[in-house]
């Protein structure tokens, strides 16, 4: 009972925070402390439910007249609740450091608690109506946060596209729930679970769910709004949208595909695996060619959502074939990646916010040398960048490792298409991992290393202490999550067992903290041992080298093959770093073409260099349909200017046609 009160109280606190901030300007500063408290309480309740493997439920006389508003917090919701509230806590801590006079506005702060509450409510909704209502609340509040800087035309464009895509997503989810409820119209999740739909309806529901949740999560080709909208919001809101809201989309997909739709068929696995793998690689190719710091991070979110969908698809495939051990590995990989991505992506967005605050710039080619100007942010951002590149011993690698183990079980799948999809997916995941490393070396190398490329970058300073604490907490989680992958997977055991009928063997490895996939004879990853040996090796090397070497270190001008140029413009920029990758991958994926225009000999005009990229996804899935809709609207426009007789004729004709259809079908 305490849990229900905790949930209700915390959500009430969020509502009060929103209300106060709407009413008076002086209450704006209260929003973040209240949100932080609510996030702690909500997170504690979620943690308790997840670890005790129980559930909380409540029913309110709101919503649909027949069933009311049903709320239920089961382990799956609780797990995602931990993800959400961890992100909300970090973002609120970061918000505490915002300047009261200049940085708090009535356009952002009142909406922040609504957004946080809406995400929590989507997770605990236990009927279709409530789910869709809160989902829409989440979309609209985040949309309002995106257009907070409405004077910027780019923000407005992002807001417009986001609104269209959010509407598309909600409509498809509406169809999905309509299919799930069936002709009887049982909209509570309990009723849906009792009566799972037949195979044809299930296929339609799955497609609708993939469109609805994929558009929120950024699955290619539904990703186009995400790299525009996420960066347009204030940075701590970007952290929430990218780190956390995409996870709510994953939750929606999991709730439908693993819970409401009943036992899976093997072919359900194909769309998430194929789309996910494409998304993973293409998302990073976009990221590696982009020059805007926050947009790169948003594209990398697209990639990570793809990775999670691949893991979920594999889990579906194994579950459908009753390979429960493999399903458990894939599902644990998916859940851990959800958790890990929410940590490092929030950390990176908060870091980007710190950079934006300190320099006023987000273009990578205008930054540089921040490791000296903002030393603390630089260290924390480095942790996030290495973690997201899936490098051991940080947390990104733990989920990546588990995912590869799941891919390795691919040969056991009896269906030919899945059998052969597995190695292809393995290759694409490896490519995505390598591209992620390249992408974040590029981001960190141009923004934080080297020499400052602008006055603002040279004059930057670290952000407020509480903001450093927010980033520090997330960085700590990235490190701990990397070392304690085994215990974390163990804690997820009950949830995974509930869905996959099996869980990872906890503590079956050679040391208590090791992560074991399948069994210890087959695959073990012991991050603490590896980290310990790397630490011992580097420290002994340090001691020995310092003992025998001449310890003096001289500072001098850079060597640079003998011709160092003092101008910071001679450094490699983000664009030049991306050039080899653009030539290798961009020519295929984006039809990249480089044009160099040289003036004729003797002419002293400057030479020109330009790069042309084609965004096929935009061209096919956005520009084309938009043109078609506009064209159709123009044609139909004539219908608005008819005489009353013609309208009457049209209505009569419609009636006759409908009646004749009814006569034929009955």
């Amino acid at each position, binding site marked *: 009972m305490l849990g229900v009160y905790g949930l209700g109280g915390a959500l009430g606190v969020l509502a009060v925070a929103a209300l106060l901030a709407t009413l008076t300007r002086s209450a704006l500063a209260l929003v973040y402390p209240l949100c932080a408290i609510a996030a702690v309480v909500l997170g504690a309740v979620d943690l308790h439910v997840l670890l005790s493997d129980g559930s909380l439920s409540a029913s309110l006389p709101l919503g649909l007249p027949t069933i009311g508003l049903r709320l239920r917090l089961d382990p799956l919701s609780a797990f995602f609740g931990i993800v959400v509230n961890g992100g909300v806590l970090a973002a609120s801590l970061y918000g505490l450091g915002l300047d009261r006079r200049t940085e708090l506005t009535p356009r952002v702060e009142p909406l922040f608690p609504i957004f946080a509450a809406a995400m929590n409510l989507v997770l605990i909704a236990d009927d279709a109506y409530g789910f869709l209502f809160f989902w829409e609340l989440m979309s609209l509040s985040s949309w309002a946060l995106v257009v907070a800087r409405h004077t910027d035309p780019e923000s407005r464009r992002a807001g417009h596209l986001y609104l269209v895509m959010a509407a598309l997503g909600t409509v498809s989810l509406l169809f999905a729930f309509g299919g799930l409820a069936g002709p009887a119209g049982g909209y509570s999740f309990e009723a849906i679970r009792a009566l799972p739909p037949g195979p044809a309806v299930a296929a339609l529901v799955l497609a609708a769910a993939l469109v609805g949740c994929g558009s929120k999560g950024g699955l290619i080709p539904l990703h186009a709004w995400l790299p525009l909208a996420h960066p347009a919001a204030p940075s701590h809101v970007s952290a929430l949208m990218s780190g956390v809201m995409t996870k709510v989309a994953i939750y929606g997909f999991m709730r439908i595909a693993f819970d409401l739709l009943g036992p899976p068929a093997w072919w359900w696995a194909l769309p998430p695996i194929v789309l996910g793998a494409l998304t993973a690689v293409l998302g990073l190719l976009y990221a590696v060619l982009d020059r805007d710091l926050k947009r790169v991070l948003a594209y990398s979110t697209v990639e990570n959502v793809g990775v999670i969908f691949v893991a979920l698809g594999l889990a579906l495939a194994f579950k459908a074939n009753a390979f429960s051990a493999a399903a458990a590995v894939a599902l644990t990989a998916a859940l851990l990646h959800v958790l890990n991505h929410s940590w490092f992506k929030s950390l990176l967005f908060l870091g980007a916010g710190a950079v934006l605050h300190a320099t006023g710039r987000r273009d990578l080619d205008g930054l540089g*040398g921040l*490791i*000296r100007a903002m030393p603390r942010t630089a260290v924390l951002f*480095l942790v996030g960048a290495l973690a997201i590149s*899936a490098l*051991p011993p940080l947390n990104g690698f733990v989920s990546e490792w588990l995912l*590869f183990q799941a*891919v*390795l*079980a691919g*040969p*056991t799948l009896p269906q030919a298409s899945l059998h*052969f999809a597995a*190695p292809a997916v*393995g*290759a*694409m995941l*490896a490519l995505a991992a*390598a*591209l992620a*490393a*390249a992408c974040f*070396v590029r981001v960190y190398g*141009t923004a934080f*290393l*080297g*020499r400052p490329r602008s006055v603002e970058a040279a004059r930057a300073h670290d952000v407020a202490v509480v903001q450093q604490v927010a980033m520090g907490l997330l960085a700590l989680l990235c490190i701990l999550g990397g070392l304690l992958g085994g215990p974390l997977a163990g804690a997820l055991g009950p949830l995974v067992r509930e869905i996959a009928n099996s869980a990872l063997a906890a503590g079956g490895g050679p040391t208590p903290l090791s992560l074991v996939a*399948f069994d*210890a*004879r*087959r*695959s*073990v*990853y012991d991050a603490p*041992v590896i980290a310990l*040996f*790397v*630490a011992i*090796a*580097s420290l002994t*090397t340090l001691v020995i*080298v310092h003992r*025998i*070497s*001449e310890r003096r*270190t*001289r500072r*001098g*001008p*850079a*060597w640079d*093959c003998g011709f160092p140029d003092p101008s910071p413009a*001679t*450094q*490699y920029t983000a664009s*030049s*770093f991306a050039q*080899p*990758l653009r030539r290798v*991958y961009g020519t295929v994926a984006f039809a990249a073409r480089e044009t160099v225009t040289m003036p004729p000999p003797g002419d002293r005009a400057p030479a020109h260099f330009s790069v042309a990229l084609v965004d096929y996804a935009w061209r096919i899935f956005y520009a084309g349909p938009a043109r078609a809709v506009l064209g159709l609207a123009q044609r139909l426009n004539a219908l608005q200017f008819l005489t009353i007789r013609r309208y009457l004729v049209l209505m009569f004709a419609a009636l006759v046609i409908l009646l004749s259809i009814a006569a034929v079908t009955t």
Partner: protein
Amino acid sequence: MTPAIVVQFLAQGAQMFLVLLIAPLAVGVTRRVKARLMRRQGAPLLQGYRDLAKLVRKESVLAESASWLFRTAPYLVFALTWVAAALVPSFASGLMFNWAADVVALVALLGAARALLALAGMDVGTSFGGIGSSREMMIATLAEPAMMLIVLTFAIAAGTTRLAGVADFFIAEPIAVRVSLALSLVALVIVALAENARIPVDNPVTHLELTMVHEAMVLEYSGRHLALIEAASMLKLTLYLSLLICLFVPFGMAPAAAGLGGWLIGTLAWSAKLLLGAALLGVWEVSIAKMRVFRLPDFLGVAFVFAFIAILLAYLSRGATV
């Protein structure tokens, strides 16, 4: 602590120092073979050790714009590579580390070392450092998927991702001529050449500006820092040679339960195979020219395609392992 664990620990330690000890010799052999084939006298076999000793004792010159990352990276790169090298079974298959991490982790550890080095290359803010880092990461995006497919092929064949388990499997099961293994061998050799910055991907002896990749990245290093980076790349070469040995010619390696005698034979067999591999590398390097950077996708693409065909064949031939 039982005596068995102590012995295990000591054996693991012995392996760590053995790879460290033999790595400069392997590079020396390669250089010597190259020199002799070009009818040069060549440096003595032990020149690698002398170079390292010289560099360690020299003072280190840091660029004015270098940050702490530049000074820390060499130690971490060296340590990561060293631990990775110790993960590959050399003289025995049943050592302690074999339980700590598998091939996927091995590839990732090398990836971590590479990312740190690439960051260090960007740190001073010169054009050469950037060119090296950017090309190194581009090559990595081509080589790493191929590498991952190769190790997965072996993992599928042996039913485990632990390298020692794979080695045990191939020691126990007489190697039949398998198409997938032959393709993997070609692919792994190509990846090894790329990862170690050898000809035709990169030239370890060149300092001609526009052709440098690895050397451009570490151009600003000197003294003890350079010594560590050189040592790390020597270790990496030993690692890849050991990996090839462990996967394709594991005979002589002491199985898990072997005693001191087995380990001694294992050490001798491994050292001989390693030095032979280093000599073969020398022969290969004098018989081929370096490629242009943008021809590399084709070259590494061959590795990828071979690895992909290999894994498809492995998937076909192997059914249930779960």
